[in-house]
């Protein structure tokens, strides 16, 4: 795999995925993500968004096509430079919050003493310092998701992949986590690829929304969401409503593409 030139953090070229059982899940798909960009992959359930994320993470090999990550080949890069947040919190119930966040560093054989500083810092950044010694069962759904986010951030990755992370949360908690995620992103300037099936969430969070067709998922449209201060005021603004309408229409067209083909 070749090094990506320019400022792309990740690039997919002609990536397809056909599963062993013959299901054509994805592509071909071409996608380029700038360094520090926040993009959303939006599409109906089963359109291969999660598959795309797993391929980028190196958890699942593409049937054809190439995935390039900034700097190094995907295999070598992914250990330290990718953080993954699953749909469920996916925490180890037998370990404390601190040990759950420590896990990636432990698997990379980092010394506990050196790692402790990083773990404490990242727990502070998601507002969970005082819950470090607590077991996951004692936390609310939103707090579990914060732990999951902290775990993804602890290796200081270049790229953060998020697979419908807030889908199971209530709306009030989701809004709060949306704001916190944006604040973290503004501060850390990570590249984020965010998979969602919520039009509103994609518009609120991202700089660019990639609308995908139903299976096999292809890029149907790309919509740039203008730079705006993402605050609670933005949620109620006319600009936000306009973007949501545009994205919804694009999504409807994407679904119609399937019906025609």
């Amino acid at each position, binding site marked *: 795999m070749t090094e990506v030139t320019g400022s792309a953090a990740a690039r997919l070229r002609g990536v397809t995925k056909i599963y062993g059982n013959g299901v054509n899940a994805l592509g071909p798909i071409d996608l380029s993500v700038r360094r520090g960009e926040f993009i959303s992959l939006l599409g109906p359930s089963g359109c291969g968004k999660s598959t795309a994320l797993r391929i980028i993470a190196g958890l699942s090999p593409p049937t054809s096509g190439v995935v390039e990550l900034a700097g190094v080949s995907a295999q070598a890069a992914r250990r330290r430079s990718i953080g993954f947040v*699953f749909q469920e919190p996916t925490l180890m119930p037998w370990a404390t919050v601190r040990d759950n966040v420590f896990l990636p560093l432990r698997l990379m054989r980092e010394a506990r003493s050196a790692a402790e500083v990083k773990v404490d810092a990242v727990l502070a950044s998601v507002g969970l310092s005082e819950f470090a010694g607590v077991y996951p069962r004692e936390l609310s759904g939103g707090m579990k998701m914060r732990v999951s986010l902290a775990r993804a951030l602890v290796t200081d990755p270049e790229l953060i992949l998020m697979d419908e992370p807030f889908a199971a949360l209530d709306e009030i908690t989701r809004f709060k986590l949306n704001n916190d995620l944006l604040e973290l992103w503004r501060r850390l300037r990570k590249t984020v690829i965010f998979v969602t099936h919520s039009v509103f969430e994609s518009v609120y969070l991202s700089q660019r929304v990639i609308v995908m067709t139903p299976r096999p998922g292809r890029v149907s449209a790309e919509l740039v969401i203008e730079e705006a201060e993402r605050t609670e005021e933005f949620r109620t603004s006319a600009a936000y409503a306009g973007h949501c309408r545009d994205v919804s229409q694009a999504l409807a067209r994407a679904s119609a593409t399937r019906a025609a083909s």
Partner: protein
Amino acid sequence: MEPDLPTLPDSSRGRPMQVILPIVVFAVSVVAWDLLVRLNSIPPYVLPGPLLVFDTLVKDRQILFDALGVTLLTTLEGFIAASIIGILLALLFNTSRIVEYSFYPYAVILQVTPIVAIAPLLLIYLPQQTAVVACAWIVAFFPVLANTTLGLNSVDRNLADLFQLYGASREQQLRFLKLPAALPHILGGLRIAGGLSLIGAVVAEIAAGSAGAGSGLAFRIAESGYRLNIPRMFAALLLLSLTGIVIFMALSLISHLMLRRWHESALGKES
């Protein structure tokens, strides 16, 4: 007006009843037993009264507790062998489908064949003490194997992906993911295995009894039977039951202590 709140299941209210009711049943049974023996003047060689059984337990304590020691040692050895071999075999099955498919049916065969039928053969082929431990092991190891296998297979798939993402080695996967995830199942298997090793040891001792060298608790029961020493039979039986209860409670306690921080089974209903 405040609505009537539904009464929640209250573990603090259920607990005393759980302790008191069995004790009441026990006390009533013992009194009934005593009355039955006294009122009908049943001779001790037919049915000894509870006091006589207790007296015999005290009087014969030297013989009985020595015998208990022998049986306990057999049980412990069988239990340890069952735990180690059961867990190791499950780990082996987990790493290789070929090994699992090749050997799992034989583990099942070993489990479903009655130990009473295997014991005499083992006693012919193996030294007495080894044969007795082997019986305890055969009876006890399958629950450990089956439960550990189930536990190792019930690892959260996303967590497994996460380990893969960070390039975890096999040893790390085992240590930090598979074994902790399987722990509740393993402990459940061990809890069953504890009681079963005692059963295996007792069955083997009874089978070995005629071979002469046995001196465990089961052997004492058989021997007392031949001599029509019924009170001692009862005393030995009582001791055996108490031992089984203690083993079960000890293993339950260990399981609870190991899981209480995180596992649902060890948490109160209200949390």
